[in-house]
């Protein structure tokens, strides 16, 4: 089952537009045939998932993410419960036969296009390009890379303004910021996310940030004489403003420990549009 090098080498390419940075990647071709190679493994691993969805179409393909001449299995499940937004963006998984002799899910996302980057040598893992986002191998599974938007550059909030801005983070933050020797501080940016004035504020300080959630973030919108929080969240590392906009406001990308969260405008405030994180290996 596992050594299917010849098949891997024979995998063809689909004419799918890829972002420029992924031009060396090869789109993964998926076969809906019940007799496709690897299908029996998918049938076994996802027996219940398939059984619970009447009329589901399973597409499978083989890739060699490790460049070692042995195959991993890509499977896509096409069903109303498996697809998002449009029929082509469906649950897509990659199964790898691990050293412990069991099949593990190393990638599991709703995906439209999926392509495999060039392998950079034996025993290294190829990058994946999924709907324009690059996924790299991290320890035991694929994790998304950042860089889906423009990185926000923050500046320190002046000390005498910190108490006022702390109100956006709750009464506890206000109290800490009011202390003679505050253990928290703030930094801000004025990103262009849509009409009106906006302040993006990130809290800093040893006690301010949690593990794994990161540091608290608020996006404030000027509303007359007040500033109204329209996004509450936390970020690990950078904050990015995406080029994608919903109803006139750009998505905000917050970092998580292993991926990122896309916050989208819902008309009144920002809410979670998508969480992009690695698959939890079980």
């Amino acid at each position: 089952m596992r050594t299917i090098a010849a098949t891997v080498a024979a995998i063809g390419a689909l004419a799918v537009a890829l972002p420029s940075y992924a031009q060396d990647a090869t789109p993964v071709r998926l076969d809906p045939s019940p007799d496709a190679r690897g299908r029996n493994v998918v049938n076994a691993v996802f027996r219940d998932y398939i059984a619970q969805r009447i009329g589901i179409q399973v597409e499978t393909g083989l890739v060699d993410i490790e460049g070692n001449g042995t195959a991993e299995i890509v499977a896509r499940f096409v069903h109303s419960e498996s697809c998002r937004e449009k029929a082509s963006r469906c649950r897509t998984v990659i199964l790898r036969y691990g050293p412990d002799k069991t099949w593990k899910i190393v990638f599991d996302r709703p995906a439209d296009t999926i392509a495999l980057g060039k392998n950079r040598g034996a025993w290294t893992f190829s990058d994946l390009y999924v709907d324009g986002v690059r996924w790299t191998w991290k320890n035991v599974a694929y994790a998304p890379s950042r860089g889906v938007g423009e990185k926000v550059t923050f500046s320190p909030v002046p000390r005498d303004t910190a108490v006022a801005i702390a109100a956006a983070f709750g009464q506890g933050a206000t109290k800490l910021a009011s202390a003679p020797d505050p253990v928290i501080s703030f930094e801000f940016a004025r990103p262009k996310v849509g009409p009106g004035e906006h302040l993006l504020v990130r809290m800093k300080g040893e006690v301010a940030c949690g593990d794994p959630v990161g540091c608290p973030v608020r996006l404030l919108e000027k509303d007359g004489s007040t500033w109204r929080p329209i996004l509450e969240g936390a970020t690990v590392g950078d904050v990015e403003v995406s080029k994608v906009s919903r109803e006139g406001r750009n998505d905000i990308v917050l970092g998580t420990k292993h991926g990122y969260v896309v916050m989208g405008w819902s008309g009144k405030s920002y809410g979670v549009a998508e969480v992009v994180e690695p698959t939890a290996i079980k």
Partner: protein
Amino acid sequence: MAKTNRIAAAVLGAALLGSVAAPAIAGPLSMDRFTEVTGLSLSDRQVTSLWNSMVSMGTTQFLGGSLGSFRLDEASMIAGAATLGVTEFDNFLRTGSLSSVVNGLGSLLTQRMTAAAGADLSHLVGSFTSGGGLVKGASESFASLTSVGGASEASGSCDPEIGDKLAESGEAYVKNVVETAMSEQYGFSQLGGLGHGTSGGGGAKFGFSALSCLDKLFQGANVDILFKPPSLANLTNMLQSWTCDKAVSVAQQIAGAFGDGNVFKTGNLGGFFPQLTFGEANTAAPIRNLAEGASPSQLFGSDFASVNVKSNGEIKISARLGDLFK
């Protein structure tokens, strides 16, 4: 409603029976154990800093208060603050809302807090309050640190007959919660009192009377005998991300997805999905796909559009603020 409260009171009473104060090992050994069971690697200085910050913010008023059958102590609060950040943890206790959307955060938070409960960090924070409850993680983690009759006895090793009664009342409780949540008159945010006035330790309790969704979070995550159905775990996962007053709609989603209460009677069948093995492979309900590829409003309707903004969240300042940032 009265029935719900009676059942809740009975369950809570039984839970608190098992959380009798017990002497625990203090000092560095306890800190080592804290690190081991929570996975949090905190220095003594960091623990002290977190605690002092919670004192400054007034978060420590919740010390000794109950979240469902779980009782907050110093160690569990340190674990919570280290997980969320100290100000976000303060917000969490006051509002029941988590601003972060990290996958599985609610489970991680409750796991860490319950596992930490019982650790005596008094050498760092200056006090020790007996905490925990009828919570697997807490009692098992610190079983070696507590004496017989303490939290270790609350680890679920109760008389089978009592366990059956608890499970029975738990199922009824779940059913009532859903029924009540679906009513127009009551909602989760109005189901206060489950943990109200029942805790010792001198902590303030008023804050919890309005935070019944936190009760669900803790009960669902830890008191397995009460919340066997995975669907209820989903409910609590929802509650981790949405403000309490939005939970009604979540409950409606769940009730709509699963129909009447008979669906909870799956204990003899091994639960909903006895062959749960491969990641998402055996999960079904669309509710689970909270953050995958669709906005909350798409998934749950326009009611969720403002989920990340507190109703009273406006900052009462400051044209001046805008001037300063120009």
